[in-house]
């Protein structure tokens, strides 16, 4: 299976702060990969590194065979990467429709309408509030809009940073269902950070456990679940 994303010996952080140490990670085409770990372990920094929103000190990030170290942040989307950030993932003053259009900023103007229809058929719950201002939506609605926006750029790889964070169990289940559907229907590769592990284990093919900026486990979700020591010590689950 060829890699959509290959991260090799990555050391990254912000300015003088070193957050990630020698990270090696692979995400194959059509694969959903989970990054789990306690708060402050560097999970978001890892996604930010892919987008060059964090500083890469050494190592490489290879997207579809292309090294990304020299690529500017705004060009990463054009390489087929959609990013649903944990916070600030919609433009609150713009309408939902405008948010979707902004999500397709890297696409030719003529393709935006067609892409919007495709995305809305995948994320149907967004359709009723297309005209509403994004800032007026509830947390769950906003997260769905953010997911739809991240899909607008026709991604090959979708980065999801805690998509159910702060949501009610019902809203979390809806988002999880959407992600599962996306994986089944589109075969999209995904890199997912999620605290709600019960939701993740149904969806992902591979897990990486990140602790203090270092990967201390990689393997299938079943293997991780079987390692009671890791589950209890780092994820608070027995």
């Amino acid at each position, binding site marked *: 299976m060829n890699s959509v994303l290959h991260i090799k010996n990555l050391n990254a952080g912000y300015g003088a702060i070193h957050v990630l140490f020698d990270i090696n990670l692979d995400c194959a085409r059509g694969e959903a990969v989970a990054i789990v770990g306690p708060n402050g372990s560097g999970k978001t920094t890892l996604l930010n590194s892919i987008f060059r929103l964090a500083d890469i000190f050494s190592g490489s990030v290879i997207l579809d065979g292309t090294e990304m170290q020299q690529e500017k942040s705004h060009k990463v989307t054009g390489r087929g990467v959609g990013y649903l*950030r944990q916070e600030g993932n919609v433009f609150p003053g713009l309408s939902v429709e405008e948010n979707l259009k902004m999500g397709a*900023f890297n696409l030719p103007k003529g393709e935006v309408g067609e892409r919007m229809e495709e995305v809305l058929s995948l994320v149907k719950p967004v359709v009723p509030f297309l005209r509403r201002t994004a800032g007026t939506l509830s947390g769950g609605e906003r997260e769905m809009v953010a997911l739809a926006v991240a899909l607008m750029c026709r991604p090959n790889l979708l980065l999801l940073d805690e998509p159910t964070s702060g949501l009610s169990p019902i809203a979390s289940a809806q988002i999880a269902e959407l992600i599962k559907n996306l994986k089944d229907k589109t075969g999209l590769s995904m890199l997912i950070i999620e605290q709600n592990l019960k939701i993740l284990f149904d969806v992902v093919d591979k897990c990486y456990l990140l602790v203090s900026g270092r990967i201390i486990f990689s393997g299938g979700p079943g293997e991780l679940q079987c390692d009671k020591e890791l589950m209890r010590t780092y994820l608070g689950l027995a």
Partner: protein
Amino acid sequence: MASFIDALTYSALLGLMGFGLTLIRRTTGVWNVAHGEVVTIGSYVALTATSFLAHSPYFYLPMAFLVCAGASGIIFLAGVEPIRAKGASSILLLVVTIAISLIMIAVINIYADYLQNVFHLSSKNFLFARLDFTLWGQMGILWAAWAALAALTVSYYLVLQHTRLGLALRALAEQPTLAVVMGANVKSLSLLAWCLAGGAAGLAGCLFPMRFQCHPGVGTSMIATMFAVSIFGGIEKMYGPLLAGLVLGFAQIYGIDLLSSWVGPGVIPFKDLIPMIVLLLTLQFLPEGLSGFVGRRRG
């Protein structure tokens, strides 16, 4: 009547100056203190061009727009952006623009001295009123200033609401990092905003000496009033500076005339305090400014 016309003209010029300041604030979140000097550069473009190339100062409006757009772009690229890219706070960026402003004041004064000493131009105090035309019984500056402000406001509104570029500028104003993630080149968009803002300041600077006395410190002396226009107008909508310019321009010129006729001419030297009072009142009672207030009432 003269006061009324002065107030109308001054309002439009204030609106043009505040337009640029608001555009920069709205898109990049920077309080650009050096914006006053960009206005002054516009006045000196007009002085230089009319002195050496003849024609009416109106003829040089495009030149003033371009030169000041370039000056503002250079301020952004050479002064603000390198420090902003390192994650500087908005307060630190404000300090950066103060430093740039002081450097520009020195450069403008050196240039004015040069014009005076070498070419014997009256560059420390100049007025182009004699070069103005008359239309419907009023000086051309009244129509020109309002036409420039209206054209800028309408065209900016159309770009903002109906183009992809406008959508990206609005997105940039709200969540710059998210705009980057979606593929917008934030540096280029910010540069564009700074250039447009500088161009608007250049138009104001070029038109200002048609009615009001100009000197090397004209923009510097008005920067606090420009800030008042930007804060009072709000950043929600780009018609904010137009409304705020109208209110403050009238308050400053027409209001002080009215006040002096009641309490005596002793109040005239304090006319610059009016925008400051409006600024303080706005921050206390209408922090979102006029355009934000109008938007909230409609919403």
